[in-house]
């Protein structure tokens, strides 16, 4: 494993660090909104991982140009399409989670996990 191929993995490592930051927010914080925020950060990091994998050296956006040379490289359109779908689905799930939080707040008067657990045990 030479230094060049290690440098080629640098993007992946940064994306994994971002992912783990999101994961930490999800499991370390008891506030429900903070958990959803952590999930969002994790999600965007996964998108970035896919987009990173779709890139090609000397490539350009996958839009065919008349003037381009025959051997023009394009980045992978498939990863773009998958992530386009994932972004929109992600917002739908976020909206669902936030609606549940609003509902929990109405019934329990709190959005802190430990307080909700105490209220649940009392009842």
């Amino acid at each position, binding site marked *: 494993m030479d230094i060049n191929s290690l440098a080629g993995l640098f993007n992946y490592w940064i994306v994994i660090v971002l992912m783990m930051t999101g994961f930490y927010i999800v499991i370390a914080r008891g506030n429900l909104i903070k958990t959803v925020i952590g999930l969002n950060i994790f999600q965007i990091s996964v998108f970035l991982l896919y987009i990173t994998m779709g890139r090609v050296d000397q490539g350009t956006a*996958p839009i065919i140009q008349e003037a381009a040379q025959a051997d023009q490289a394009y980045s992978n359109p498939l990863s773009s399409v998958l992530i386009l779908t994932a972004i929109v689905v992600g917002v739908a799930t976020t909206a669902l989670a936030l609606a549940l939080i609003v509902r929990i707040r109405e019934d329990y008067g709190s959005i802190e996990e430990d307080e909700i657990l105490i209220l649940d045990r009392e009842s």
Partner: protein
Amino acid sequence: MDMLELVDIFVLALLAATAVAVARVRNLWAAVMFTGIYSFLGAAWMLILDAPDVAFTEAAVGAGISTVLMLGTLALTSREEKPSKKSPVLPLIVVVVTGSTLIYGTLDMPRVGDPSAPVHTRMNPSYIEKSEHDMHGEMPNVVTSVLASYRGYDTLGETTVIFTAGIAVLLILRKPGKRKTELPNSAEQKGSHG
């Protein structure tokens, strides 16, 4: 090319700093704003990685609509996170172990931008080569033709998911009048209109 690499590293550093700021900050309003900034930086980086379609969507939907939804939730709940009594040690260990495992996994992955990586040798060339002919030469953007035509059923499934989520949100936030009298702590609620 060197300039682009510098911008690349700068955006990545900003992304990491924003993520850490979200983890540390206690004010939820600030956390939501940082999430919006994080989304937008992500969109900027996607543009550098030659995926403008995803960048547009992320900037509009991820940084825009998500942030608005979260601000709406903050208005209906609370803005301040209570200090957690949980110790951060166990989550930190879990995160470090998972992260190291993932980094160990990347050692076998092809270098970023390698044209001979499996991602680029399966499927992709045929989409790029055939798209122009299949779309009668009127659709230069391959992402659009894959999204709306070759993988159109994916997009149909996506709209089904959004529809289902929308219905679910409406059902969860619906107020069937009589519920209110059953609540003992209704004094604590404020502005609870879904």
